[in-house]
């Protein structure tokens, strides 16, 4: 087994762990963390594909590496947007009372000056 294969297997386990956390965790911030773990596991799978594509003097195939760099930046942008949504949602629910009151039933006292 080579180093790249071990990294690929690590990526597979990370993807499974991240998926488990994404489904199990009730807290949305923990879900965002698990989603990031899942994403970085998938990127490691790209890494093994890049490493095995070493040829012609390049130690690793550059195209999957570029895809992973793009992926890391886009994953950060998505995480930032998700965190901003969470913080805003928390601001609203702490003002209103709870998630159920915010999403479903109306309170009829003008709590809609979003």
């Amino acid at each position: 087994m080579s180093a790249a294969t071990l990294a690929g297997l690590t990526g597979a386990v990370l993807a499974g762990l991240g998926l488990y956390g994404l489904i199990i965790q009730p807290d949305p911030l923990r879900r965002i963390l698990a989603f990031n773990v899942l994403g970085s596991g998938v990127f490691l799978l790209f890494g093994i594909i890049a490493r095995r594509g070493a040829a012609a003097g390049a130690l690793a195939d550059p195209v999957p590496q570029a895809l992973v760099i793009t992926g890391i930046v886009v994953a950060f942008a998505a995480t930032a947007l998700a965190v901003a949504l969470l913080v805003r949602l928390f601001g609203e629910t702490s003002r209103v009372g709870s998630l159920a009151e915010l999403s479903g039933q109306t309170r009829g006292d003008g709590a809609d000056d979003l």
Partner: protein
Amino acid sequence: MIVQTLDISLAALVLTLAGWTVLAHGTFPAVVSYVAYGLLLSLIWVRLFAVDVALTEAAIGGGVTGVLLIGAASKLRNAALLATERELTPPLRWAIAALCVFTTLALARVVLSLPDPSPTLAPEAVQDIAATGLGNPVTAVLIAYRAFDTMLEKCVLVLAVVGVWSLASDQYWGGTPSALRAVTGYGTLTFFAQLLPPFGILIGIRIFWVGADEPGGAFQGGAILAAMWMIIIMARLADAPAIGGRWMRIALAAGPIVFLGVGILGFIATWGFLAYPAGFAKPLIIFVEIFMTLSIAATLPMLVAGPPIRAPRP
């Protein structure tokens, strides 16, 4: 390259930290564990001979995402209101665990059955690289061969900033986002924020500049510049800029606009959309990269700072 003790220890550490991130009791330990996990993951990327990816993972994946998540964990400290109220019975947990184990096994099967010799684009990438004037194949792929993807990625960053800003209340539009730290006047932090940014800016510019021939590039250098700016904002030496400010918006939009402009220039001059003319490629690429770095250095702190919470000054 056969597996060594270093690889096994790195894999064990990374898996332990990821398990702790997913399964820890409490949000703050999970976030801290995620930051450490990101940094160790970048070591695994170095072992895979992907040094550019390692730099990006350490800077953006571990560093900037860590700042974002630590800030979020502190803001959401009392967020029991947000947790969904369904209860997961043990049989359901076992079923979900079985699903995840099945996913892992499927991906591991894919990893172990990759074709040998594996198809690769490295020869084509390296063979045409002299025409672009670059020495680093990853930078060539990012800016020259797949420039369209990179330009769209810059647009995604701008869209994310617009999305974050749109969460502001109407009366705060155009104002400044929350300060990244709620307290003021730490002498230590002020000293740090006065000492480090000059060196950090030099290092960031150097990592961007050297990305043409060696591992580095616009994303990594831009992330370091963004980190320096975030340190200054966190030490309250300067406020986060108002989102309605003209220079702020120009800095954010400069990257995609310049990239798109160079692409359209190529279209007009019959080189092809986002193609570079032979002989003039490297100056154009550096020109695009400068504005990309500026844009990234402006975008990342605004994404971390969040929507404005103070009304703009008239």
